[in-house]
């Protein structure tokens, strides 16, 4: 019998989080960010975290809360700048964090590469720019490409709209973004969902993330 539901946020994180863990966090802006799971990480007290996410948080919640509490050693993202990105801006200027900014298409493809069991790929993105420094460059059809390696993590923290006990997921609108790919490249994939439904209620042609990629689910209801 498969049932991936956990009773609470803390049970969902139980035994999986360590100091020094690498976390992937779904979401673009606020859409799809698993705020409750992130606040669970804050409560769990882990330190020296590495976070892989598109943005670096705004206001005082979610990733910003972890940054503000000094729990994050390094953040890998494509677009930290944002109206309201006050915490990352402050600690970046104070040199209190290692910030790695990479073009959005590269981390998502590196994550997919890891999840798909591939060994790396070449992309034209970033060739001829400062981001090419230290990277293998290969001329393919006369055009420079950079070699990029698979990117995996210990925990993927995601937010979905609906789920069943097998862990099948559908997302809400543009809240989908990174999550279906991040689900494939984690040692453990943890998902907060708005609504839990009976097995068979999600249409098999419309399931976006098949449950094989999901380890634990927690039902949050209408999240913050």
């Amino acid at each position, binding site marked *: 019998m498969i049932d991936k539901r956990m009773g609470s946020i803390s049970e969902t994180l139980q035994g999986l989080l360590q100091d020094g863990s690498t976390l992937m966090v779904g979401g*673009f802006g606020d859409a799809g960010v698993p705020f409750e799971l992130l606040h669970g990480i804050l409560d769990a007290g882990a330190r020296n975290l590495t976070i892989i996410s598109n943005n670096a948080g705004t206001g005082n919640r979610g990733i910003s809360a972890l940054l503000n509490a000094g729990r994050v050693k390094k953040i890998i993202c494509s677009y*930290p700048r944002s109206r309201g990105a006050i915490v990352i801006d402050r600690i970046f200027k104070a040199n209190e964090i290692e910030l790695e*900014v990479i*073009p*959005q*298409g590269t981390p998502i493809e590196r994550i997919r590469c890891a999840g798909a069991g591939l060994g790396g790929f070449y992309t034209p*993105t970033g060739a001829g720019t400062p981001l090419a420094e230290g990277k293998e460059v290969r001329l393919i059809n006369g055009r420079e490409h950079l070699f990029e390696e698979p990117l995996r993590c210990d925990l993927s923290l995601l937010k979905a709209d609906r789920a069943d006990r097998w862990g099948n997921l559908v997302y809400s*609108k*543009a809240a989908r973004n990174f999550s279906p790919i991040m689900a494939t490249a984690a040692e453990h994939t943890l998902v907060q969902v708005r609504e839990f439904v009976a097995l068979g209620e999600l249409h098999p042609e419309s399931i976006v993330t098949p449950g094989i990629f999901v380890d634990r689910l927690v039902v949050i209801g209408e999240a913050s």
Partner: protein
Amino acid sequence: MSITEILTNIKPLSRKQIAWRAAQDVVDGSYVNLGIGIPTLIANYVVPDKEVVYHSENGLLGVGPPPKPGKEALDLVNASKQLVTLRAGGSYFNTAESFAMMRGKHLTSVFMGAFQVSEHGDLANWATNDKGLMPSIGGAMDLSVGCKKVGVLMNQLTQDGQLRILKECSYPLTAKGVVKRLYTDLAVIDVTPAGLVVREKIVNLEFAVLQQLSEAKLRLADDWCELVPPEIL
């Protein structure tokens, strides 16, 4: 003539007018990505009889106008994180699929802002040389290497009067040799294998003066015309 004197004789385009001019180049039936800032305004000036499918790199095709008050969906945002709507025929997909569209040359055109552009079409729009400014790339690098037509919208000069159209960019590059057309507050300039070619310039702006406002050498097209935007409030 000083820049101040120049600017008293001419009327540079407003941000909205620059967006209006770029909108004239949007083709019926095309797939278009609009970058953060001025480019986002372009959709407002595309005539409704053109059916255009707007792409947003966070995973949308068919982006529509902002929602009516009370109809907002918090999960429905564009790449600028603004609340938007989805048109009939629109679809949602994940970031990997979205960037496959971008890098894979599936979009017809992309319009972006920039800090600097070189005469070779090099683009610099993600970082300056100011170590205190937090760098941010987003989809700019993937869009610029992958799109068939890259248009850049920017004022001819920075707020403190620095040139932006250069022989070589001094800021870190986003991509090399990708920009096809520049839309500034003074002119429309094409990047060609033979260098920069001015296609349109605003009324009362002497070509020699426009050249002063570009480090890179400009050539005035034989068939150049005046850039006359409508009044936009």
